[in-house]
């Protein structure tokens, strides 16, 4: 090589190296030089806000670390949820960090979306709406989900400026039948709240108040307040009447399975019994007389024949009801099914007025915000009008009509018209947004200023917990931009919220404003409104409705679309946690198969996993069948919420949307839809599909796992059998030196110093809702593995709810939260060759991830099978990793993991205690699961502190340990469920 070539070569090398090797772009989340005021690296900051995952409006605290939200928890001050959240609330985070979130505005051009800037989208929207407004009145339409007064006022103001009044509030579950019944019987045009905690008997005609009904977290708490065992007594009873076993029905003392539409007949029968027993004096003689005449035909035998419930059980229910001093009657589910939904609600309300003349169980002031939603009949007529005259601008705010409504309602036609300029404010490409002309994503609730009082009489604020991730504008900014002379942007949203609260008389000064934001709202009751006068019941539309009751279909197939505790109406379907956590009752994850009674399947030569063709007048769907005892024969159940068109990678497309089988019809009296339709056939398609269910067995095979005790045994204080060594007689062996006995134990007890952490799980309080599991996913960076991996048995949940059916009565259910038992004599510890499972001096069974080499012996030897192995490096598409909790290691492939009792929270408490030179006090540490449990079924604490709650609860006669006879001495101690016999 000559000198020149050498120089040429070295020159080009130097250039290519310097050009090719850019350093990584800076990825700092924050700058230590200019850190936000309240940010200390390593310290969380909490902001109070409001959950907007459903219309209930629970208070929420967002935990911020280094400038991003990593966890949400219930706001303990909030009047609705008192610090608890359901699994949908926990999954709020996966909305903001969703990898399929739309990051820019999109304009449709020749059928395809093209990204445009927010500014351009805004000016386009302003221009089009101005044009529409100029063309005449009512040319701009708003279709929104249920929103708070603040946003509602903004919508109205903008519409007014645009010469329009067409503001429609759409909620798929709008409680039309309940609203109508409330108006007719209580004289209240809306949705009252229920003082469930004061009742001693609840009779629900299907109301699924533990899942989606009105305000599930609130009612779950109130339900357990009346229903859970206290000391050695249990007074509350709960009867659930309905064609399928919802989670609520599974938590009832008795589930009375009836034909769809027969609930109203049961109500009539009960009214007759009550009147015959001399109740109902407060109604007045005329009303009593008419009711007596009306219900004369509803002898219990006849009701039994119509409904399919046995006369004995009805008789029993009637006796319990008449003996009850404080009964509460609830109406139909959120998705009212059956032909007599209105009548069932009227029946429930009538019973309330007959047996609770003062209506003490009814809270007329705390009205649920979802009452502002328009009736389905109004939505349909709006859609039809729009389809008939598709002119102007339609603004869609999280109203996914194409998913939540049966087809043939006109909206599809309207959206397809070019003359109607449709703008969607959604952050996700859902079925409706796909058909919009302009997608203008606005900030999600965790990034916004706002107000949403889930119940009347309280103010619940929203504030941005973190900077907007996508640069999207506030909804109120967008709306204000459509009004001439208003300059949004900057601090407009915050300021307008302040002005709104001030104008409505809630705030008096700026100090109060700051306090309100800090607390998340104003929760003390305003002056109680007067109760509306009770209507006279002798005659009226309710009587006409009751006279027009149709007998339920006997024989013939029908389908019920049931709301999902996991994804509500489908809005949660793109949150991977919600699909990964199995349904509480079917234990099916990711899918929503059609649930069919085993007898119905057997009749047709089908089995679980057969793909069936379900056909109604309106359409046909192919879906796998799930054999379920949670329904009556011939009634098929399908969960609402999957089968999306679009909506990102996590929404399940292969599952089907049951609404495709439904007609777009509403009840003439209530204007509500029926989430129920007769079917013409179900046929075998010849294919088979794998059902992703996480339960290996539906029953507990007579083992000492999830135990129950009858109320009478509890009251009598029946002693357990004499201690022995068998599964049935093994005594409670506490994970303390006291639990060791030379006769049983070879090794001495662990010397714990000051602390021995322990958890008490009250099965009588656990409703199986799965909020704990979701909280655990969020807190502990659990991986989502997806459908295929779950089929292989590789889910990573640290906390699972085991659901066991009674082998003799498969309709009876017991739930058992299963997590690492932190055994004192842990079988996992001695078998590891490298001491990766390690017994800490506070009794926690620590898993040392970087010591683990992956022999999996610990998992093989764990009798509770709570250890989870990282079979792969799990995927978290960007920006989901931003949600990861920096206090918890993200586990790499090849290591074992499991519940740590949220050891990071224990460490944190220790740090605080050490700084203050004191011991960690009882209640200072709460693991994520216990923190969110709506019914307070989980109690965590130090067993060595004799005054701690756990130390007191282990002396409860209901205390036992799962598979205690293995002498593992678990630190998770269960309290037996208390059941009513008969």
């Amino acid at each position, binding site marked *: 090589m000559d000198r020149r070539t050498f120089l040429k070569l070295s020159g080009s090398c130097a250039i290519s190296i310097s050009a090719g090797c850019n350093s990584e772009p800076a990825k700092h989340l924050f700058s230590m030089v200019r850190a936000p005021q309240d940010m200390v690296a390593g310290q969380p900051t909490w902001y109070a806000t409001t959950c907007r995952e459903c219309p209930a409006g629970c208070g929420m605290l967002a935990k911020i670390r280094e400038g991003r939200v990593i966890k949400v928890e219930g706001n303990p001050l909030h009047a609705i949820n008192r610090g608890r959240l359901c699994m949908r609330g926990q999954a709020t985070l996966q909305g903001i960090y969703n990898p399929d979130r739309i990051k820019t505005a999109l304009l449709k051009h020749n059928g395809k979306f093209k990204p445009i800037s927010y500014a351009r989208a805004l000016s386009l929207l302003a221009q089009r709406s101005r044009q529409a407004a100029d063309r005449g009145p009512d040319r701009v339409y708003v279709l929104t989900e249920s929103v708070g007064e603040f946003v509602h006022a903004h919508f109205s103001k903008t519409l007014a400026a645009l010469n329009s009044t067409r503001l429609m509030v759409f909620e798929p579950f709008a409680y039309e039948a309940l609203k109508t019944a409330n108006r007719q019987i209580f004289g209240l045009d809306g949705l009252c709240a229920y003082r469930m905690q004061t009742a001693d008997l609840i009779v629900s005609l299907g109301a699924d108040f533990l899942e989606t009904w009105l305000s599930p977290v609130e009612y779950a708490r109130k339900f357990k307040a009346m229903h859970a065992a206290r000391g050695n007594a249990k007074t509350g009873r709960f009867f659930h009447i309905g064609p399928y076993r919802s989670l609520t029905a599974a938590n009832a003392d008795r589930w009375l399975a009836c034909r769809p539409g027969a609930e109203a007949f049961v109500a009539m029968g009960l009214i007759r019994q009550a009147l015959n027993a001399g109740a109902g004096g407060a109604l007045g003689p005329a009303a009593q007389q008419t009711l007596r005449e009306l219900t004369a035909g509803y002898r219990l035998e006849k009701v039994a024949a119509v409904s399919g419930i046995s006369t004995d059980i009805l008789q029993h229910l009637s006796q319990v009801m008449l003996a009850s001093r404080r009964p509460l009657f609830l109406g139909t589910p959120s998705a009212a099914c059956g032909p007599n939904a209105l009548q069932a609600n009227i029946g429930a309300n009538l019973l309330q007025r007959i047996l609770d003349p003062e209506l003490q169980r009814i809270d007329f002031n705390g009205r649920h915000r979802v009452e502002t939603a328009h009736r389905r009949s109004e939505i349909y007529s709006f859609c039809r009008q729009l389809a008939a005259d598709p002119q102007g601008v339609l603004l869609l705010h999280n109203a996914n009509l194409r998913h939540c409504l049966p087809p043939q309602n006109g909206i599809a036609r309207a959206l397809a018209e070019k003359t109607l300029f449709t703008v969607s404010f959604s952050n996700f490409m859902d079925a409706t947004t796909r058909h919009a002309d302009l997608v203008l994503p606005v900030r999600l609730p965790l990034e916004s200023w706002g107000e949403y009082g889930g119940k009347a009489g309280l103010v619940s604020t929203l504030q941005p917990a973190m900077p907007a991730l996508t640069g999207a504008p506030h909804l109120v900014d967008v709306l204000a931009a459509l009004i001439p002379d208003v300059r949004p942007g900057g601090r407009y949203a915050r300021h307008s919220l302040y002005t709104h609260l001030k104008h409505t008389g809630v705030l008096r000064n700026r100090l109060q404003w700051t306090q309100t934001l800090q607390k998340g709202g104003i929760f003390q009751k305003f002056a109680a409104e007067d109760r509306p006068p009770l209507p006279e019941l002798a005659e009226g539309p309710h009587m006409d409705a009751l006279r027009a009751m149709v007998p339920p279909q006997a024989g013939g197939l029908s389908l019920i679309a049931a709301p999902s505790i996991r994804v509500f109406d489908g809005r949660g379907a793109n949150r991977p946690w919600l699909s990964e956590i199995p349904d509480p009752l079917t234990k099916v994850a990711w899918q929503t198969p059609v649930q069919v009674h085993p007898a119905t399947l057997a009749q047709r030569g089908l089995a679980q996993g057969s793909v069936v063709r379900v056909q109604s007048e309106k359409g046909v769907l192919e879906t796998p069948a799930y054999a379920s005892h949670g329904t009556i024969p011939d009634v098929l159940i399908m969960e609402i919420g999957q089968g999306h068109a679009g909506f990102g990678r996590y929404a399940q497309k292969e599952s089907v949307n049951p609404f495709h089988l439904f007609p777009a019809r509403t009840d003439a009296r209530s204007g509500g839809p029926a989430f129920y339709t007769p079917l013409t056939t179900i046929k075998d398609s010849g294919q088979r599909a794998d059902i992703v269910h*996480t339960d*290996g067995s539906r029953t507990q095979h007579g083992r000492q796992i999830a135990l129950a005790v009858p109320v009478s045994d509890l009251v009598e204080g029946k002693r357990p059998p004499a201690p022995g060594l068998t599964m049935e007689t093994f005594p409670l062996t506490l994970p303390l030196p006291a639990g060791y006995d030379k006769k049983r134990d070879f090794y001495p007890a662990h010397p714990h110093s000051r602390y021995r952490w322990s958890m008490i799980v009250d099965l009588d309080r656990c409703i199986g809702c799965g909020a704990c599991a979701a909280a655990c996913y969020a807190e502990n960076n659990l991986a989502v593995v997806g459908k295929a991996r779950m089929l292989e048995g590789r889910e990573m949940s640290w906390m699972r709810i085991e659901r066991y059916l009674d082998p003799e009565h498969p309709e009876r259910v017991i739930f058992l939260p*299963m997590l690492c038992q932190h055994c004192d004599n842990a*079988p996992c510890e001695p078998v590891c060759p490298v001491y990766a499972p390690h017994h800490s001096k506070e009794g926690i069974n620590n898993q040392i991830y970087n010591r683990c080499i992956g022999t999996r012996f610990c998992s093989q030897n764990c009798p509770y099978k709570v250890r989870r192995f990282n079979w792969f490096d799990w995927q978290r598409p960007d920006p989901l990793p931003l949600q990861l909790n920096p206090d918890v290691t993200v586990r790499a*492939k090849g290591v074992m993991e499991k519940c740590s009792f949220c050891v990071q929270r224990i460490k944190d408490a220790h740090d605080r205690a050490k700084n203050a030179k004191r011991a960690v006090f009882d209640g200072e540490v709460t693991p994520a699961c216990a923190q969110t449990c709506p019914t307070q079924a989980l109690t965590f604490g130090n067993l060595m502190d004799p005054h701690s709650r756990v130390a007191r609860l282990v002396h409860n006669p209901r205390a036992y340990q799962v598979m205690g006879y293995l002498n593992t001495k678990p630190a998770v101690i269960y309290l037996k469920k208390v059941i009513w016999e008969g």
Partner: protein
Amino acid sequence: MPQSAYSKIDRTILDTLKPAGRSYWIGVGLLGLGVLVGAACWTYQLLVGIGVGGQNNPVGWGTYLINFVFWVGIAHSGTLISAILHLFRAGWRNPIARAAETMTVFAVCTAGLFPFIHLGRAWMVYFMLPVPNQRNLWPNFQSPLMFDVVAISTYLTVSVMFWYTGMLPDLAIIRDRAAGMRKKIFTVLSLGWTGAHEEWRHYSRAYLFFAALATPLVISVHSVVSWDFALGIAPGWHTTIFAPYFVAGAIHSGLAMVLTLLIPLRSMFKLKEIITLRVLENIAKTIIFTGLIVGFAYGTEFFIAWYSHNSVETTVFAWRATGHYSVEFWIMVICNTTIPLLFFFRKVRTHIIPLFVISVLINVGMWFERFVIIITSVARDFIPHAWGLYAPTLVEFGIMLGTFCLFFFAFALFVKHLPSVSMTEMKEVTAP
């Protein structure tokens, strides 16, 4: 016959070391290819994660551990034949001792691979070694897996030394007759053996001591392997019968593998006069005995499960016989306990073909025995909600193929390059 019987032995055996034909090398090449397939599968598994196999929760151990126990079992008979039968002065073991020992060495090596393959983080395996480190972390000697490390490595060391010691005089014979490069290699390998009287005296002492040292290992190694399970608490594992049951099963499978290897060997290398039918018949008779022990163990397990009145225990055993893996269970029962009984018939045990077929069937049966033990117990253990099933994946089959090929590959190379029958020991039982 001018030629002495001794030189005939030498010639017959040294003939096996003559340069091989094309078919041999094709066979070896195919086996080598199989090894590469296995290596590729393992590499893929290391890169992607152990999840490419079929293990899951609750069945955390799959074919890797099945094959581990299977090969450790195979490794047993070599030492049994060469050491225990040597101590008992059973002369019929002399023709087969070398092959059996070689089988032991290669089987232990193959078995030793599986714990590595099976690890979630194979690259961290050195955590199991008691290496001094600044954090004072020490392996957990309470863990049966640590027992395994100790037992298997001891067994490998002792059996390699035993094997090599026994081979020394033979290596010297080859050295004496070889030329060129080969001579140099065997000069080194034979460690300067001259055949002096003193050397013979030391040699036979050493061999006897090794035999005595190896004998307890035959019992201990598989007992230790059985404790991997017996010290666990899963139903069907936690039982005191496991150690003798595993040892009997190991010898059962080892003897069958000896038959599987020797029958082709003696016909391929014309060793019929040395490895006589009587030798094979004696192995077959021993198999009847071990088969009966194994059958008794199966029966005892079921009896104890029933006798315990423990529902967890009875469920597992009832499920083994009737549940999802009942086919595997009945393959195990029939191949291991029923079919060996055919050896009671003289005609069966003195015919090459039935001997070979039955030996292969026993190997299959013993593989499924390990399958049934390792899979079914955890698939149906304490918490019914967590029950699950397991099925091996293609990657696992690939690795399994690779390791089987590795064993036969090594064995094929051995028979062509080292004396597969001990000339020295043959001479001990032959009249000059």
